[in-house]
């Protein structure tokens, strides 16, 4: 067995032949990352705001939404939204859309918690001082609470976005031609899984490593 491993001769020469494929896969990964992160943040801001409501009729559904997405595996969510939802709703969703829906709502659930956490972390004194000056709720949010909260939310948002970019690789189960799926296609063409998946891993690393460095810097700045 050891002998077999030692005898494996690495050959990356085939990899560049698929450059156009790789680029397309990279583009799909980045597009799904950007799209689902942005969509998830919009969902998060809306649901996070709703969680601030005093009415349980408003907060309870949001609470269940968040918990359902936090307590089920993302892979299951992607598959469910892709295959089951169109049947449940009796509608035909475009494949690219159905594939991204699970990911978006998953991001949305975490973004909701980040948003709510950022808002409620602001000292009670800030709320009462704003109210005492005569600010309405929107004035207080816009000028006093959000500017301080956004600063605190940014590092966890960036961290969640990094995780989200990696999670797009799960889209390969519903045949979205992202970096990961592209890799699997090239493997079936070349029979060189070790080389191809190594390249896939390196590609993710090259995109994400600078982002994690940036996130660490952001976090240090907020802590000051």
């Amino acid at each position, binding site marked *: 067995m050891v002998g077999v491993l030692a005898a494996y001769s690495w050959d990356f020469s085939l990899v560049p032949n698929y450059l156009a494929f790789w680029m397309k896969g990279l583009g799909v990964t980045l597009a799904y990352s950007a799209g689902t992160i942005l969509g998830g943040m919009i969902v998060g801001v809306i649901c996070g705001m709703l969680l601030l409501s005093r009415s349980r009729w408003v907060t309870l559904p949001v609470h269940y939404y968040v918990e359902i997405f936090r307590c089920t595996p993302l892979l299951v969510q992607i598959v469910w939204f892709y295959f089951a939802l169109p049947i449940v709703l009796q509608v035909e969703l475009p494949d690219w859309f159905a594939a991204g829906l699970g990911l978006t709502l998953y991001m949305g659930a975490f973004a909701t918690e980040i948003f709510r956490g950022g808002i409620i972390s602001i000292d009670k004194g800030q709320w009462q001082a704003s*109210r005492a000056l005569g600010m309405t709720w929107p004035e207080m949010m816009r000028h006093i609470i959000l500017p301080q909260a956004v600063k605190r939310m940014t590092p966890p948002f960036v961290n969640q976005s990094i995780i989200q970019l990696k999670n797009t690789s799960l889209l390969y189960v519903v045949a979205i031609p992202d970096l990961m799926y592209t890799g699997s296609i090239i493997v079936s063409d070349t029979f060189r899984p070790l080389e191809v998946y190594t390249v896939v891993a390196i590609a993710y690393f090259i995109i994400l490593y600078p982002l994690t460095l940036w996130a660490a810097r952001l976090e240090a700045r907020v802590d000051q």
Partner: protein
Amino acid sequence: MVQVDGLRKSYGTVEAVRGVSLEVDRGEVVVVIGPSGCGKSTLLRCLNLLEQPSAGTLRIGERLIDFGAGSLPRGRELARFRARIGMVFQQFDLFPHFTVLRNVMAGPVIVKKMAEPEAEGIARDLLAKVGLADFTARYPRELSGGQQQRVAIARAMAMQPELMLFDEVTSALDPELVGEVLDVMKQLAIEGTTMIVVTHEMAFARDVANRVVVMDAGQVVEQGAAEEVLLAPKNPRTASFLSRFHSTIERKN
């Protein structure tokens, strides 16, 4: 100017304010004293509706609110009501992301939608008055507690309120910083600002208050001219509370 009648506030089963009636005339300085937990801070917070009283009536200026019945102000109406009452808190609660100048401009610009140059003029005048003309570009965290509290007073005054509420504004300060804040308040009193002051500073009560109100267990137990109440209390509970402060009250007389 201010008329409170039978005001009550309860939290669950605990009644913090149990039927307080109080009148404050324009330009009057009323100091509210009493042991901690007697409901004096809660009373103050009820006056600008930071707390929603459970019963009673409140009249400020010509605006009358009956908490027993009818619709309480909400949203924009509630905000407008508060805009006419200034409040200063124990912990200053300045806006940390604004400079000192911006803090004082916040009310006029955000609430009154005043043009920036005009608001800046008001803010600079007020900061000069509280002795912080050179600190306009600083951030709150760069200031001492006493300086922050003076900014907070200027911030509240920038709204040109009809009434100023002070909630134990020197309690969080180092002893050597208390004087500078009290001096600013004294100045406001001399200029005829209507003020309700919750404090443990008995010397301030003696020197500045037109009237002292003593609270205990959620009720007003005694009130009257500062000298009378502080030096010759009629109520035994007042007397026992004040006995702890006698050295402060009698000194300097």
